[in-house]
């Protein structure tokens, strides 16, 4: 018992798909229970925050955390687990890159609240009520965590040792990561688990170095399942994205949307993809090129589908954070950092 590892699993601004990814290792879950005591896993085990608070610092061997950081409560839990853990693994696309929920970073809290609580056609809110950090009810006061202006990657809030990409990570990767930890066979800190190359390199489709005269949206054509998506004019993030996923989407005749994040050596996944797109454009005529670029109707959503919190665009976004939040009087960045 004394030799058993100590694990914690926790989730923040995520969907629960990463928890299912753990379940999807199926009967191997019993092997995990055999090598490790689980000190926190709200989905499965009855230990609470206060149990973690009383542990000595660095008592937990590995904490696996999924989800980005969207609220003050999530930030507190991340900081608590960092203090109590030797190693933190950012588990899945949201903890690693911000994930799809970080597409919200193109908007601020006010715009999100306005849509959710006022504008939506089914909402009946004549008093213009918004959720409040503190609410006085007849019996006393009740509180909610602060909703930050933006979503943060886990490593923007606490230091992170390893990253497990994917939305969700594959069961094989989860099993491989747990095995590496169990064997004490850990790679250098900062390692991103996953493939060494790009989705393009793993993709079995035929590439002919063909250029395209225009881009199509996925509902507009039926792509040939044997040929490169991009060479058929469909935006595919495979060239900018780390492999290790098994090209699951391409096997279903759908393009890659980049959930494994940037491949090694790629600083910005969206910028890399953009440069790939420019290489397949079959034209030297500026007006024609412009017309083709206009066919890429949602550049942000194609280039940064899973990584808005990681994109170089963050410098623009961060400048909005300087405004003080009315509830705290502190800037959002200060609150988040």
């Amino acid at each position, binding site marked *: 018992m004394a030799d058993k590892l100590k694990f914690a699993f926790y*989730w923040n*601004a*995520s*969907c*629960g*798909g*990463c928890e*299912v990814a753990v*379940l*999807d290792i199926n*009967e191997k879950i019993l092997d995990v229970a055999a090598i490790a005591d689980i000190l926190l896993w*709200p*989905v*499965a*085990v*009855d*230990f*609470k*925050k*206060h149990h973690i608070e009383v542990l000595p610092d660095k008592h937990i061997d590995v904490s696996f955390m999924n989800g980005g950081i*969207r609220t003050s*409560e*999530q930030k507190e839990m991340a900081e608590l687990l960092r203090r109590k853990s030797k190693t933190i693994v950012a588990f899945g696309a949201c903890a690693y890159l911000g994930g*799809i*929920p970080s*597409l*919200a970073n193109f*908007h601020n809290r006010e*715009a999100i609240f306005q*849509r*959710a*609580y006022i504008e*939506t*056609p*089914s*909402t*009946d*809110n004549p008093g213009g009520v918004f*959720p409040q950090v503190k*609410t006085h*009810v*007849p*019996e*006393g006061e*009740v509180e*909610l*965590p602060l*909703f930050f202006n933006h979503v943060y990657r886990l490593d923007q809030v606490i230091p992170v040792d390893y990253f497990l990409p994917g*939305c*969700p990570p594959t069961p094989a990767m989860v099993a491989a990561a747990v095995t590496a930890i169990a064997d004490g066979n850990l790679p250098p800190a900062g390692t991103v688990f996953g493939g060494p190359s790009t989705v393009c390199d793993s993709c079995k489709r035929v590439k002919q170095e063909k250029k395209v005269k225009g881009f199509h949206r*996925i*509902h*507009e054509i039926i792509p040939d399942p044997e040929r490169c998506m991009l060479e058929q004019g469909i935006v595919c993030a495979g060239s900018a994205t780390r492999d290790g996923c098994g090209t699951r989407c391409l*096997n279903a*005749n*759908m393009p890659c*949307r980049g959930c494994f994040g940037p491949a090694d050596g790629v600083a910005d996944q969206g910028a890399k993809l953009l440069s790939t797109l420019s290489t397949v454009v079959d034209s030297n005529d500026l007006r024609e090129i412009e017309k083709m670029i206009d066919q890429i109707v*949602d550049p*942000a*959503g194609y280039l940064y589908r899973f990584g808005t919190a990681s994109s170089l665009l963050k410098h623009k976004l961060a400048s909005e954070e300087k405004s003080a939040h009315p509830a705290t009087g502190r800037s959002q960045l200060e609150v988040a950092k």
Partner: protein
Amino acid sequence: MKRITIDPITRLEGHGKIEIFLDDQGDVANAYLQIPELRGFEKFCEGRPAEEMPRITPRICGVCPGAHHIAATKAIDGVFNVDPPPVAKKLRELFYNAHFIHSHIAHFYALAAPDFVLGPDADPAERNILGVVAKVGVEIGSEVIKHRAYAQQIQAMIGGKATHAVSGLPGGMSKALSEDERRDIEAKGESFIKFAQFSLQIFEDVVLKNKAYLDLILGDVYYMKTYYMGLVDEQNRVNIYDGKVRVVDPEGKEYAKFYGLDYLNYISEHVEPWSYLKFPFLKEKGWKGFVDGKESGIYRVGPLARLNAAEGMSTPLAQAAYEKMYLTIGMKPVHHTLANHWARLIELLNASERVLELSLDPEITDPNTRNLPQGIPKEGVGIVEAPRGTLFHHYQTGPDGLLTKVNIIVATTNNNAAITMSVQRAAQKLIKKGDVTEGLLNMVEMAFRAYDPCFGCATHSLSGQMPITAKIFDHKGSLWQKLSRD
């Protein structure tokens, strides 16, 4: 006034929190179930191409991503005004029934079963899935794991990925089913049916034959008279993939039946400052506060609500099980919240039978799975039954098919007011004269667990346990009593 804080009770991709206020006699004055999270999909999907929504919205919930995938796919059929070929509709339904099987197996065995197999007041350290496996045997445990894995495999075959499927397109599906895959699904379908029947037998042996449990189900702690909502086919039978939304009143009389965009004529959502989650109600009845009965607009969704709102099941074995439940309880609608567990297993059987039926459909391997949209995009509503209840996706676009407005009402949101009231009622029935015992905590938990709430989107997938600490403060805010379940 004294206050009991239960934090966290469970999660909606975050935490849930309950605040219970006690009056001077120590009885419950009021209780608040607070949901402390929002992610803003309705805002950040604006500007996105509508056809991408089946690959964006599943991230609302990774335990029921299939529900969002299918609701979004149906909504964009509407946006692009295109009707998929019959095989595409059948593939979606096959995928979706497999999705239900995954979700219902996980909920029943991992979340609900510990309360019944081990007992509501069993040692909390054992009251979880591992305790269940220890009691019923590893063989049954591995059957549970195997059948949930089968359901995931079928979703991956049709959807590309089990979690966060990718294959839904306006007018069809991206990939056809091969004959090898079909044969595999047929075999799994036969196995699902046996497993679902076995699960209902376990429920009968462990729960229904135990008088204490039956009393708990039929008692007044977990009882509330509300409206019920669910999708039905032309014969008013439960249909999780398509049909009309039917609403029955607390006496079981049809109150409304509607389709698509008409949802806005029937449903409104109320906002409270103390929760990030809105509270839907029947528009015509108006928001009357947290009260049940015919004059209140509060309705419920989910397995029991679906059976209450329908007049039968679409498959023979599930129909027999449905009849048995209403005969045993002796009323319809059933207002006993814990009967959701029974209804969920009847639906497991129904979904299993549908998987087999669809796998035997001669058309299911038709390679022509897509119709290309030709019209000008505008607006669409996709409604499905998520495992936890009715789910609405409503999109509007410009002529370019880029989204201008998005409105989504998810299953647990529909149940938000009812879950809050169930918690209030359980607290009021269980806490008297300030006497708070540890046993209370699991009993309060059972009030919301029956709904398989999506603020346990993953909570429902493995655990019978939610971390609970209750702190009781006096009116000066100093700690009076602290309870925790170890």
